[in-house]
């Protein structure tokens, strides 16, 4: 987009707006985070295409099982942990900068950035040398190189620095305007940072008390079930950590970019507070098929999981209503005419709209995964992979790409380059994901296990039913790779060679029916309170099952490295 939010085109000859030094420094930090995200994304996308082709049993140069499982590990770590986390940190700093005119403790934030990056490099070095093909879920007793665990722990520690910075920015904003709520963007970012602090306790405990000492040989064995439980304590809120920044964009950027207003801001504040409360005490729904955990606790987590769909369904209404406002303001009429009137050629808007469409399908699939009895049919099949490529791989990742098209010109003062590629890219992603994901869901229902190098199974009759599906899925993988390549090219072109011009400001969407005097801070703005409620729920949901697990006669496992 060369036009700013109001559609006003700015001449490229205008000299750069002089930015205060603090803002320049904050913007540099945002850009540094986005760089890491974009590079991670590009590498991971290349591996993904290779995997999709391998599952279709097509030969590739250097194709081997150990290459495949190494590449699945790299793809999961780079996409799920690196691309997302660095993008989310970059977006968070931009939001905090916009809120207060400065970010708290810039030097500390830079130090944390370098710490996280060093951790990532360390972990990836062991992955690419085939020493850590344990996948991004790293379930013991598969044992990676110690630096894999230490590196990922440093990434988490670095992200804690970010989370502390977000909470501090939020407190400063509240102190500066007593009685007035912070912007919805700051509110949601802070809720997400608090959620992250609560969630990462699980994975940090797994790393520090189990995996790091075990991989260094300081202890001989670990309990794999305890490790799985700690991982999924973290693993489910991790998906909300990915999704909430996408929701932030849907609430605070999309309505304005689409030419309208946010339908309901107060409910948006409620939605993010509810996510903070309910994201964590649900992890056992990833362990339905695990032994050693009584059914009663799995059932409690199932009910909690249903509650967490409430804020998502409220969001669905608000976002569609905001889009209708935009479509009608742009002259759309009739029952569906407003949909056509939306700016489908604006890559930020089309990314988000297509991400929302894919997310609706992903949401229904998620209800199946979390269903207490149905899970037995889909657990660990290609259905699951297909599902989360619609949620994190589309709702979050496609929104993040669309957000980059909007954010990068606003933090670099560079015009978006290769705009045609940017326009096509979201549609290619949609097409590729539709092919990949539809076939994955069907193949999963037909029993195809996830994460397999080849799907032949010695020509077993049941395995032959997967063949056509994995071929179409591979085609989807190729289309997705083209889309990812376009995104990376647009980003590199913009970051390195985008024409310099006046930096357009970040402006949040107005909300419909905002009172003349502005909103007054209410119960949903008290995130500290909701954090406390979340802690109580976590204790209720996890204290007894963990206690019971720890008091079984357990036999630990030594490490295995079958890769």
């Amino acid at each position: 987009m060369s036009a700013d939010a109001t559609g006003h085109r700015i001449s490229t000859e205008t000299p750069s707006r002089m930015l205060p030094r603090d803002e320049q420094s904050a913007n540099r930090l945002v850009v540094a985070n986005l760089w890491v995200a974009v590079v991670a994304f590009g590498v991971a996308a290349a591996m993904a295409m290779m995997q999709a082709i391998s599952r279709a049993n097509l030969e590739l140069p250097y194709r081997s099982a150990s290459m495949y499982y190494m590449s699945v590990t790299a793809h999961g770590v780079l996409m799920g942990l690196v691309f997302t986390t660095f993008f989310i940190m970059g977006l968070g700093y931009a939001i905090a900068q916009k809120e207060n005119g400065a970010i708290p403790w810039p030097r500390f934030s830079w130090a944390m950035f370098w710490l996280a990056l060093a951790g990532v490099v360390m972990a990836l070095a062991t992955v690419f040398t085939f020493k850590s093909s344990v996948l991004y879920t790293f379930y013991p007793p598969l044992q990676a190189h110690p630096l894999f665990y230490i590196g990922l722990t440093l990434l988490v520690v670095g992200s804690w620095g970010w989370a502390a910075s977000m909470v501090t920015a939020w407190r400063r904003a509240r102190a500066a305007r007593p009685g007035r709520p912070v912007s919805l963007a700051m509110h949601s970012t802070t809720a997400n940072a608090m959620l992250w602090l609560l969630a990462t306790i699980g994975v940090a405990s797994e790393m520090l008390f189990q995996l790091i000492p075990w991989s260094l040989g300081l202890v001989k064995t670990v309990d794999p079930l305890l490790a799985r439980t700690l991982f999924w304590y973290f693993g489910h809120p991790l998906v909300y950590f990915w999704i909430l920044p996408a929701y932030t964009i849907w609430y605070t950027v999309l309505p304005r970019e689409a030419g309208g207003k946010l339908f309901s801001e107060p409910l948006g504040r409620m939605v993010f507070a509810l996510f903070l409360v309910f994201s964590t005490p649900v992890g056992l729904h990833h362990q339905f098929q695990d032994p050693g955990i009584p059914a009663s606790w799995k059932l409690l987590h199932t009910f909690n999981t249903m509650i967490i769909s409430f804020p998502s369904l409220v969001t669905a209404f608000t976002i569609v209503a905001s889009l209708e406002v935009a479509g009608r303001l742009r002259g759309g009429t009739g029952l569906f005419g407003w949909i056509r009137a939306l700016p489908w050629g604006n890559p930020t808007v089309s990314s988000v709209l297509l991400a929302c469409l894919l997310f609706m399908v992903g949401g229904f699939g998620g209800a199946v995964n979390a269903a207490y009895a149905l899970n037995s049919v889909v657990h660990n099949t290609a259905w699951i992979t297909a599902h989360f490529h619609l949620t994190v791989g589309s709702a979050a990742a496609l929104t993040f790409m669309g957000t980059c098209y909007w954010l990068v010109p606003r933090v670099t003062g560079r015009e978006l380059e290769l705009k045609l590629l940017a326009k096509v890219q979201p549609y290619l992603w949609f097409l590729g994901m539709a092919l990949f994901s539809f076939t994955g869901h069907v193949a999963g229902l037909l029993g195809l296990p996830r994460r397999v190098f080849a799907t032949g199974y010695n020509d077993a009759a049941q395995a032959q039913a997967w063949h056509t599906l994995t071929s179409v899925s591979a085609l989807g993988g190729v289309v997705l790779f083209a889309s990812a390549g376009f995104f990376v090219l647009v980003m590199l072109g913009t970051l390195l060679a985008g024409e310099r011009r006046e930096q357009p400001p970040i402006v949040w969407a107005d909300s419909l029916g905002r009172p003349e005097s502005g909103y007054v801070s209410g119960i949903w703005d008290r995130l500290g309170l909701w954090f406390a409620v979340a802690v109580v729920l976590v204790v209720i949901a996890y204290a007894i099952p963990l206690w019971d697990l720890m008091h079984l006669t357990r036999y630990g496992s030594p490490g295995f490295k079958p890769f």
Partner: protein
Amino acid sequence: MNVDLYERIWMWIVVVMLTLFFASTAMAALGHQMHPPSHVETIDPRTAMSGPKFRPQGVSVDEAGHVHAKVIGLMFAWLPGEMTLPAMTPVTFHLTSTDVIHGFEIVRTNGQSMVVPGYVSQFTTEFDAGEYLIACNEYCGVGHHTMSAKLHVVPRGQWRSPAPEAANVR
């Protein structure tokens, strides 16, 4: 908080929908006792293979006539690699691993469970007659995609229970 009428209606629809979800899950779980495999029992993975719990591996019938299948997962095979079971008969599977985590999946059925070293998994299900592939659905190393077994399910009349000495375990 000022909430639009339509949005209020939508939120009530959502509440009703979630209540139905709650009710149906509670009925399935508490009324029909439909639970995912959640057996709590531990076992030493070093001696699981030779210990009494998993001997003999494969199919057996207990005193009450109930059919059991005992399976051990290890890199990269299920032991035994081939089993024959009667159709339309409840079968209880007992599973454990001697090395890493595996996923026992009888393709196109609801028969599946994670198999974790140090723990005994257990579930009961029944099958239509046919040929089934048993796969591993949890990544367990470089041979993960080769880890499989065969299950033949034959009509009950044609099924022969295994040798009697296999029956006295459990």
